[in-house]
């Protein structure tokens, strides 16, 4: 399965990924309109601080996904490729997934009472955060491709 990989050494904490993600998941999908939307569009990728070094992080698409185990409504499910995804129609906002995600990669949309997480931009080509990253810190592909890329970066 294709995933988003993070070459942490290249991340400069510019947060372009966060903006691209929030806009992509806004109603208008347009930056200048999205900033005025209520409730405000929410990014599913977050840049954090790992011991003084920046790290962009979104859903890791775990194989033994604790979020799928914890979901009591069946909203968090595996798609045909085996990737955990949220069916928003079924989500009741119980926050069990937020309680168990080891990466803190699920956001609570409190106003709409639904959980939000990276959906790989519904797998429509390359996710926007990867496209937007100006330093190539985010990569989208198979594991082997990333391992090779990581060796080159080092």
């Amino acid at each position, binding site marked *: 399965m294709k995933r988003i990989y993070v070459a942490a050494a290249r991340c400069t904490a510019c947060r372009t990924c966060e903006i691209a993600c929030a806009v992509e998941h806004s109603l208008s999908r347009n930056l200048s309109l999205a900033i005025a939307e209520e409730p405000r569009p929410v990014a599913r990728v*977050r840049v954090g601080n790992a011991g003084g070094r920046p790290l962009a992080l979104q859903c890791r698409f775990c194989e033994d996904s604790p979020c799928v185990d914890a979901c009591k409504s069946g909203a968090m499910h595996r798609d045909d490729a085996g990737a955990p995804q949220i069916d928003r129609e*079924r989500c*009741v906002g119980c926050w069990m997934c937020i309680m168990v995600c080891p990466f803190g990669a699920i956001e609570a949309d409190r106003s709409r009472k639904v959980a939000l997480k990276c959906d790989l931009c519904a797998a429509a080509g390359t996710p926007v955060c990867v496209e937007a990253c100006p330093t190539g810190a985010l990569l989208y592909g198979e594991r082997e491709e990333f391992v090779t890329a990581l060796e080159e970066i080092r």
Partner: protein
Amino acid sequence: MNHVIVGCGAAGIAAAETLRRISPSDAITIISDEAEPLYSRCLIPYRLAGPSGPDLAYRDERFFERNGIAALLGRRAVSLARGSVRLDDGTSIGCDRILIATGGRPTLPAIPGIEKQGVAGFRTRADLARILALLPTTRRAAVLGGGCIGLQVAAGLMEAGVTTSIVIASPSLLSQVADETAGSLYRSLFSDRGARIITGVEATAIEGDDRAARVRLGDGGEVDCDLVVVAKGVTPNTECAREAGIRCRRGIVVDGTMMTSLEGVYAAGDVAETRDAATGERTVNALWPCASEQGRVAGSNMAGVPRDYDFSLRMNAVEFFGLPMISVGVVSPRDGGYEVHARHDPSRPFYRKLVFREDRLVGLIMAGEIAHAGVLTALIRKRLPLGPAKGEIIAGRIAFPSVLDVVRSNREGLGGEYADALLALGG
């Protein structure tokens, strides 16, 4: 290989799905005493307020067909032995492996009047139907129990326009899952909306003619009502296992593969007793996330792919009247040896309590702000020594990058979810 799964809740379904994924050709039979079992018990409270609540279906109606599962519905398993399960219609099913996922039933206190009309537990779709049928003739309700389920029922009844009293034996709300500070936040939310909350007193009788009319309290007081909902925990359905000579304490005792003391017979979910990561003690953690996970691990072992189940963990997520709370592990330590850090800001409202035992996090309450709670839950669950990350966590920096080094240095022995992620985060 021939598998029989007794019970069709979270654990039974997770086991069946896992079995089918690993072994496309094994025979799987699910027995459920419910005619339509593919719903989520946890969603039932959402329907008290009206039919506009969420769809209760947890899997679609073609689930059995799609997965090639023989479903014996409306049937009860009355006894079992190694290699066979006997049903209430007298038939026996031979099999190689059995999973006991019979769950629990509402614990009903042995008080006079508990059998009256208008007294209900709250666990199944049938319980919901019974209560909904009583609602048109219900003006006032009494909920016995102030835990997560009791408060969900109370909130649902209040939304349905029923004047609701909550009778709680403990001194505070949510005493099993939270502390007094968190309990008092919810106490105000419920009483501000008209609920009468009675704490520190037991219900001693349910009075009335055929139908319940009032609850008598231990201090002599009374609560007038047309409906009594009992939410005082669940009792594991261990009868079949006990009769088969399987080792049980409060629940069915299982080993690290979810197998019971009887070879080839497994147990998972609200009926199983497992070791809790925070306390280290054997206990029944009758919780949806634990049930699914245990079912998945049991299913894998039944299919011949070894999986270890190390620890379960007490954890709850709730939201009432706009205030969310996540609570995990030990939240009210009673003896010494714990280090507690709590921060409370009623103006937001915000409450966070962290409970450490030496270098490990063993419990938390996060109310108001719940972001990144799972990062901490995983640290409790995996019992990781925190090192310098402890200070970060106490300072409120709990996003995953703050604990990346802890996870990295303990990567040996951590589950698959971390291995791939650490690689994906640059090794």
